[in-house]
């Protein structure tokens, strides 16, 4: 599903060049639930941004579902993001003046799905994250966990190939974190490919595979016994 070869990325900081990613190689198969771990500055967010087509790679190649991702203009990148990827952010990033349902329907709107169908689908996905009765509420009327669940519903609404989650539990207490992870596990159980960036050990162990980044290189890539989040909920 995701294929990365010899990926390099550096940033210019004034006169200094900061080499963030130093030749990464890895691939993710369909249906995997992968945690990318590392301390801050290890390059995990940069990696996620490149995978999410929010940032461009300097060297190497990136293939997503057989499509080479390179030299995209903004319009094309937007199309690919919409079609291939779902994003979940640490700070939820819901649009404040839109209701939960409108937020979930947004990616569908960009796909030019007709209004009625959009709303039906949005309600369906809100139902899946258990927030059907909150559909008409604005984000600031929801708790953190609820917001993240809306964000996950939104990410799933466009039926993407890969779900990218950047510290999805970073702003939540542990109980809510487990609820969110439970949800992510269940989505994975349905066969969706999910990438979770985290620095929390327990969250990482709820995935099936852990990729450890340090100073821009992969130091460890191992399969783990998945801990089900259900038991903590």
């Amino acid at each position: 599903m995701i294929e990365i070869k010899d990926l390099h990325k550096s940033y210019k900081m004034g006169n200094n060049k900061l080499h963030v990613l130093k030749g990464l190689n890895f691939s993710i198969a369909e249906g995997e639930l992968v945690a990318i771990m590392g301390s801050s500055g290890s390059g995990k967010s940069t990696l996620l941004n490149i995978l999410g087509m929010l940032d461009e790679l300097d060297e190497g190649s990136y293939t997503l579902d057989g499509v080479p991702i390179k030299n995209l203009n903004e319009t094309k990148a937007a199309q690919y993001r919409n079609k291939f990827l779902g994003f979940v952010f640490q700070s939820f990033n819901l649009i404040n003046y839109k209701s939960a349902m409108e937020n979930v329907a947004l990616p569908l709107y960009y796909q030019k799905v007709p209004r009625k169908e959009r709303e039906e689908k949005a309600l369906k996905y809100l139902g899946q994250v258990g927030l059907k009765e909150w559909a008409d509420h604005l984000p600031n009327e929801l708790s953190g966990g609820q917001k993240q669940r809306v964000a996950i519903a939104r990410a799933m609404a466009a039926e993407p190939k890969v779900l990218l989650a950047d510290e999805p539990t970073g702003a939540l207490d542990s109980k809510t974190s487990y609820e969110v992870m439970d949800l992510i596990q269940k989505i994975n159980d349905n066969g969706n490919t999910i990438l979770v960036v985290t620095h929390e050990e327990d969250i990482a162990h709820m995935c099936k595979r852990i990729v450890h980044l340090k100073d821009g290189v992969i130091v460890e890539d191992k399969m783990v016994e998945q801990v089900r989040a259900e038991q903590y909920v």
Partner: protein
Amino acid sequence: MFNKDRWKEILEVLTSNWFRTILTAFGVFWGIFILIILLSAGKGLENGIMQDFGDIATNTMFMWSRTTTKTYKGLPKGRSFLFKTDDVQAIRDKVPNLRFISPRNQLGGFNGANNVVRGLKTGAYNVYGDYPEIIKQDPMTITSGRFLNYNDINEKRKIAIIGEGVKDGLYNRGEEVVGSYIKIQGVNFMVVGTYKKKSNDGDGEEGQKEIFVPFTSFSQAFNRGNDVGWMAITANDGTSITSIKDKIMSVVKENRKVHPDDQRAVGHFDLYEQFQRVQSLFGALRFIAYFVGILVLLSGVIGVSNIMLIVVKERTKEIGIRRALGEDPWSIKLQILMESIFLTIISGMAGITLGAMVIYAINSLLDMNGPVDMFANPSVSLSVVIGALAILIVSGLLAGFIPAQSAIKVRPIDALRTE
């Protein structure tokens, strides 16, 4: 562009901060309001002055003979001469694009002696020998009976059309005018009609005290032979009389054996030239109105642009999210542009509406208090309003352009980083 969701979003954005939206809108509102008011005030002045010109055909010159100042073909200088009726035909043959040529003769004049008698009443009036076309050059309204026609000319009928002022002077109230007789310098003429002229440059009174008789009857009755006192010549629309008047005068000079370079032998008054002068003054006024109005509008537009930039800045994160979710950058650009155009047009419409209401109020004030000198019926034409709308749309586009550009320059990754 016309989908419901986009409009919903535009309204949501603009209504999320009412106070700011209204302040921003005020700039554009005020600009277009000033533009409308200035233009309509200019138009009011123009209408006022144009009213003084009356309905007179403005593409007209008047031409009369004076004394020669150069010897020519054995004739001495200082010789008086008169135009003849064959000059009219000569002009008609040799100068194209003329609409009317009216030879005229005249009796009486300013402070003239009494020359018209009816029963016991007498009066001093201007009496003109004219062709029927004169009514098109110097328009008047026939209030009873009829005006001259070519049968009158051909049969040299002794008939007269008198002004309302003449009627007041020679008749008692309620007396039947048409069919009665008046005596002009001892010759009886039957009155066949009365007219009324629109006020014409303060001569309103004088204009009503004229008597028109057929040119041919006039010549015969008052021993003018083939003489022509002066001529009123109107050119076709699209040809200015100013451009062909030299040609006309040279034809007459040749016919009357006047030296071609004798500038003072033929006098003329070019109404069109005067009219053009006044017209160019209004042109200048209009230019000033547009200039000032558009500058004021421009500052309003800059205000809109400014606020849109702030809106974009405020929504950086939102724009980033939307792009991460896969919104086309063009769609974002369109969104910002439409917000800007929408705001500009709405506030502009409000300005136009208020401007129109103020004009309406001034008009009804003018109507109530009677006419004012040099100012009448201030108004803006529909084409000006449509023009103003076009200006608004363009300025809305301009106002939104820079903010929209900066909105799509936001890279989603940077936008999402702003916490």
